[in-house]
């Protein structure tokens, strides 16, 4: 992501004190613990102009749910990576090249909370050598769901397998997402099924030359 942003003309800074947005604790019901982590996040990123995040889920945690932790806190500096490129930088071609047939998985929080649908697709369509093909269940959940994936492992696995069937049906050799947690679930299920379909984060695709 850093490389792609730099190529697009941004000055990228990485603050080593950064850790997590606090979502795992928040989604599991531990708001005090989530608030502690969120406070750390806000302190680390003090003074930053744009905070670009390679995850729809983390972005949404900060832009939508910090308001629940800090009465009405409205964090406007956070941007999901694909949307930052397309809507803030107005870039939809980063000069990437990747020979593949790719299908895009809409991660739930990006799609439903951030309403990100077109930006990643536009970026993918402009990758040389990449053919974008839609799967029939692009908008269905991969089944990860944080602690859900281990608390209700069988259900999570069953949802993941249904999703993977849709990916395989699409004929793609690569499934792309903007959320690593979905990709971890999809890769795990694909690997267990013995599939050769690979998982890639959008940033990895856009950094390919």
């Amino acid at each position, binding site marked *: 992501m850093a490389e792609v942003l730099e190529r697009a003309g941004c000055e990228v800074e990485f603050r080593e004190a950064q*850790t997590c947005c606090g979502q795992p*604790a928040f989604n599991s*019901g*531990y708001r005090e613990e989530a608030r502690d982590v969120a406070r750390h996040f806000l302190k680390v990123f003090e003074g930053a102009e744009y905070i670009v995040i390679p995850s729809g889920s983390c972005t949404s945690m900060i832009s939508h749910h910090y308001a629940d932790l800090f009465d009405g806190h409205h964090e406007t500096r956070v941007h999901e990576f694909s949307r930052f490129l397309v809507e803030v930088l107005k870039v939809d071609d980063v000069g990437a090249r990747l020979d593949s047939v790719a299908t895009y998985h809409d991660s*739930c929080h990006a799609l439903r909370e951030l309403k990100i649908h077109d930006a990643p697709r536009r970026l993918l369509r402009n990758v040389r050598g990449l053919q974008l093909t839609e799967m029939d269940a692009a908008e269905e959940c991969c089944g*990860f*769901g944080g602690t859900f*994936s281990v608390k209700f492992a069988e259900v*999570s696995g069953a949802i993941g397998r249904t999703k993977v069937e849709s990916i395989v049906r699409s004929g793609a050799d690569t499934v792309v997402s903007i959320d690593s947690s979905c*990709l971890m679930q999809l890769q795990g299920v694909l690997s267990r099924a013995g599939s050769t379909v690979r998982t890639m984060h959008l940033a990895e695709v856009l950094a390919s030359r």
Partner: protein
Amino acid sequence: MKSAPPQKIQQTLADPKLQKAIYSATGRLAGNRRKTIAADVLPDYQELRQHAHDLKKHTLDHLDAYLEEFERNVAARGGKVIWASTGAEACAFIGNLARERGVKLVVKSKSMTSEEIHLNEHLEKDGIDAVETDLGEYIIQLAGEKPYHIIAPALHKTREQVAEVLHAEADSTPEDLTAIARVALREKFLAAGIGITGANFLVADSGAIVLVENEGNARLSSSAPAIHIAVAGIEKLIPRAQDLAVFLKLLGRSATGQPLSVYTSFLAGPRRAGEPDGPEEFYVVLLDNGRTKILADPGKRQSLYCIRCGACLNHCPVYRKIGGYSYPWVYSGPIGKILTPQFMGREQDPWLPFASSLCGACGEVCPVKIEIPKILLELRQEIVEKSGDRRERMAFRMFAWIMRHPHIYAQFRWVRKLRKLPAAGPLKAWLSQRDLPDLPKKSFREQWRERGRA
């Protein structure tokens, strides 16, 4: 957290036929919905949702006044409102009325509220035969089961299973099966002394109830017997008849993908002089049964906006895998996940609000914009605070501590070390379903620093 998720989840997952039945039926309903709310056929869909949400909010914020208005208008048309604070009170009223009028046979049209209060079992104890007349409900009543889905009670049954329940030939067509049920049910409609229905809406300014259905059985249940009793939760109120224009546009589309259901009945009071049909007595049982408790919670009051369309079930990745019988109460799916803890207490099935990937599909399709994911998160917090698992709390405290200490976080090669440990706990659960990803040789921090040197 004490109670464990039911065995039913594993059983449902392990039944390939059932998996296919649930997934394809819910997928069909979801697909139909999508077509009828598409921008080219219903351009103002999102505005309608907001309008419906606002109407429900307004009504519930002023429910006391609307309930009184409704009661006055029902009485003005010769009907009677019965206030029931519990399910038992509602059942007792109906049982007593049947006894007083010497009624031994009751016909019922589909009503989740009557399921909620176990009306059939109660009437049976009083020696009264209550026959379900909605085809799906009839099938599951004969099979001795409960509704599998809010609007499609026999969704889990294959055609062959339905044939078996109706004692029909195994290769009977759906039309054959419907004809068998129709013949049996006509007899019941004519013989019954009381017809019991639910109500999709209670219209305050008209003292009327509105029934939405596809089979005509609610119409027969409410007009053929001499007595009509509608059982409805107090949250079914809407202020004016004209508000139906909003709700009816949303209900059929969200439920089955129909622009309008086949029959919409607007019923107010008993038969009037000169009218050819209709009941001689008309009662509306207004049920609380825990609703005022939810009403008192401003944050979660919106749980009562539900119009029971079932769209959240059809779009829920979890419901589509675990089916209706894995949920502990009559209301299943995402709406059940938020209603059950609020009605029955958070302690009874504390696992329930956690059985969600928080994908948000339920909130997205809800025609009255109930923020189901947000309420799930709030319920999780309440459950954790009251009866959370001690070890889990410790784990999250540790997580929060590590995340506030970046030096330790950065040193933490726990992910790498995890692999060398024997799989236990969450890792074992993860590996029961899928593999772990390969890890890069260097952490991001290491790569970043090297990049800086280059």
